[in-house]
C-alpha cells in the first residue's frame, strides 16, 4: 500500500510548528524522531488508568500495570523477531544497552591480551564503552578500517579476527555516512570462530526490517526515541545464553532473588538487569510507537523512505559546490555533505534561520571525522513524514546559503 504522507503528517502535531515564523522542516531524524499522537495518548492513558509500581504489588492496578509492561516486552520482542521475550532488556537507551554488555564483558569475560573488534565509523556510544572496558582489563581494541566509499571491507574484518577476539561490536547503519554495514556477513564470519557479535542498531531499526533470529546476532541494541517512541527507553536484545553469563550491571530492587545482609542472589533474566522501578511510561510508549508503525505498514514506510532518500541524494548531488561525504552502495536515511568553503556550523546556523533543522558537527563520531579530515559535516536525516517538497525547500535554502557567503 502506498504511504499517504499528508495523513501521516497529521499524526505528528509538532510538524505543524513554526520556527522563526516559518514552517518547520525537520531533517534531524537521526538525532531523534518526532512522536505520533498514538504514543502521547498511550502515555497519558497509562497515567490516567494504570499507573502503579510494576512487579511489586498484589493489588489490581499493579497487576494491570505489570501486564501492560510485559505485553509491551512481547510486542518489542516480536517487532525484532526475538524468539523469547525474556531476551528483551529495558535500558535507558542504546548507550546504556552497550554499556551493560561492555561492562559485563569487562568484569568477567575479558583478560589481558584479549581483543575487541569495532569499526572506524562507530558512534562514541559503541566506542568509548569498549575502549574503557579494554583499558580496565588490558584487552586491546581493534578497528576495522573504512574504504574510500565509507564502507568496511570484509577482508579487513577477517584479517582482524583471531583466537584472541572476544567480541565484535559494530553499527548496523552509520549515523554519519548512512552506510549500511554487511552485518549478516560479519556475524557469520565471527560465529565461524565462536565469537559473539553486538549490533548497534540505533540508526537501523527505524529504517530497515530487523530480524534478530535470522541475523543470529548475540546482542542488538537500540533506542526508543529514534523509532518514534519516548526518550529514556532503550532496548538490549541478548541471546539468553549470553545474558545468563553476564553479571548484573546495576544493583537494587526487582533484580534480586533472595537478599540477606551478607549475600544476595539475583533474579533471572530479564529482571537481573532491570534494577529499580523501570520506565513504564517509556516502555508502553515504545510499544505504542511500534504498533503505530505496523499499522502504517513497515513495507510502505521503508519503500517511501528509500524513494525519498534517492530523491534527496539526487537533488543534493546536482547542486554545485556540494560534496557528499560517504558513497557506499548501501545507504539509508542519512546524507552528510559540505558546501565548498563553508563551515558546516555556518550552513547549519543559516538553515535554522530558514526553519530547517539539520545537524552540523562531528555527530558524536570524532575519530571518523578526524579520519576523513573534515571540520564536521552537515547532516540531513530523513523519516517517512518528510516530503519531496521539503527537500526542494532545503535545496533552495542551500543555494541561498551559498549566495550569502559568496
Amino acid at each position, binding site marked *: 500500500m502506498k504511504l499517504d504522507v499528508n495523513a501521516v503528517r497529521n499524526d505528528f502535531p509538532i510538524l505543524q510548528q513554526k520556527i*522563526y515564523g516559518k514552517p518547520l522542516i525537520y531533517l534531524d531524524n537521526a538525532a531523534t524522531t518526532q512522536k505520533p499522537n498514538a504514543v502521547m495518548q498511550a502515555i497519558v492513558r497509562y497515567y490516567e488508568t494504570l499507573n502503579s509500581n510494576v512487579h511489586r504489588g498484589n493489588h489490581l492496578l499493579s497487576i494491570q500495570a505489570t501486564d501492560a509492561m510485559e505485553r509491551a516486552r512481547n510486542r518489542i520482542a516480536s517487532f525484532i523477531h526475538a524468539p523469547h521475550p525474556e531476551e528483551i532488556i529495558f535500558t535507558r537507551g542504546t548507550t546504556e544497552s552497550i554499556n551493560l554488555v561492555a561492562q559485563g564483558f569487562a568484569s568477567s569475560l575479558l583478560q589481558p591480551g584479549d581483543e575487541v573488534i569495532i569499526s572506524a565509523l562507530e558512534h562514541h556510544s559503541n566506542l568509548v564503552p569498549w575502549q574503557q572496558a579494554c583499558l580496565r582489563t588490558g584487552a586491546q581494541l581493534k578497528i576495522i578500517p573504512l574504504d574510500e566509499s565509507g564502507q568496511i571491507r570484509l577482508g579487513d574484518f577477517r584479517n582482524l579476527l583471531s583466537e584472541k577476539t572476544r567480541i565484535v561490536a559494530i553499527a548496523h547503519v552509520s549515523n554519519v555516512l548512512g552506510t549500511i554495514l554487511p552485518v549478516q556477513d560479519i556475524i557469520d564470519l565471527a560465529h565461524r570462530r565462536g565469537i559473539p557479535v553486538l549490533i548497534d542498531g540505533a540508526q537501523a531499526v527505524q529504517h530497515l526490517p530487523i530480524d534478530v533470529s535470522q541475523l543470529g546476532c548475540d546482542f542488538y541494541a537500540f533506542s526508543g526515541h529514534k523509532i518514534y517512541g519516548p526518550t529514556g527507553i532503550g532496548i538490549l536484545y541478548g541471546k539468553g545464553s549470553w545474558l545468563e553469563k553476564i553479571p548484573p550491571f546495576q544493583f537494587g530492587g526487582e533484580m534480586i532473588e533472595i537478599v540477606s545482609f551478607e549475600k544476595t542472589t539475583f533474579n533471572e533474566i530479564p529482571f537481573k538487569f532491570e534494577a529499580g522501578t523501570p520506565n513504564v511510561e517509556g516502555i508502553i510508549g515504545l510499544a505504542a510507537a511500534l504498533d503505530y508503525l505496523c499499522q502504517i505498514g513497515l513495507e510502505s514506510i521503508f519503500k517511501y523512505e528509500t524513494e525519498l532518500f534517492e530523491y534527496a541524494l539526487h537533488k543534493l548531488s546536482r547542486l554545485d559546490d556540494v560534496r557528499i561525504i560517504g558513497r557506499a552502495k548501501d545507504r539509508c536515511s542519512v546524507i552528510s555533505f559540505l558546501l565548498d568553503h*563553508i*563551515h*558546516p*556550523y*555556518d550552513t*547549519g*546556523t*543559516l538553515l*535554522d*534561520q530558514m526553519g530547517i533543522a539539520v545537524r*552540523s*558537527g*562531528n555527530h558524536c563520531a570524532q575519530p571518523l571525522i578526524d579520519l576523513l579530515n573534515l*571540520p*564536521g559535516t552537515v547532516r540531513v536525516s530523513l523519516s517517512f513524514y518528510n516530503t519531496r517538497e521539503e527537500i526542494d525547500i532545503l535545496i533552495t535554502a542551500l543555494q541561498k546559503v551559498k549566495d*550569502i*557567503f559568496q
Partner: protein
Amino acid sequence: MQSIQEKADQIVKELNQFDDWLDKYQYLIEKGKELYAAGSEIKNDTNLISGCQSKVWLVSEYRDGRLYFKGESDALITRGLVSMVIQVFSGSTPDEILSFEPKFIEEAGLSQHLSPSRNNGLLSIIKQIKLYAFAWKIKNNYQNK
C-alpha cells in the same frame, strides 16, 4: 575611552537596526572579516576553546592595566560573534570584565547562540574571556604583594 557597557550598547544598536535575519547575519559575517587576522600564530591547541560545533581560538594580552584579545574561528558566523565579543571586552580592566553581565547578546537578538548545545557559542567564549581576566587579576595581585 568607551566603557564596556557603552561598547555593548553600540553593538545592540547596530544589530537592532536590521528587521531581517539575513541582514543581521550578513552584518555578523562582515564583522568576522574585520577581525584582526590573527592567522596561524594563535591557531594552536593551547588557545583552542574546546567544543563540538566550530573551533574558536582566543588569546589575551595585558598592557597598562587593561586586557586585549585576539581571536579566530574556522566558521564565519562564529568569527563574527568572536569579533563582536572582542570589540566589547577588549581594552577593559580585569575587574570591569569580571563584573560585566553580558546582557547585550540577548538584547541584540542573538540569544540562540547562547544555548549550551552550541558548545562553541558565545557562552564559552565569554567564559574564556572572564577566565583570562581572572587569571590576570590573580597574577597582578601576586606580583604586587
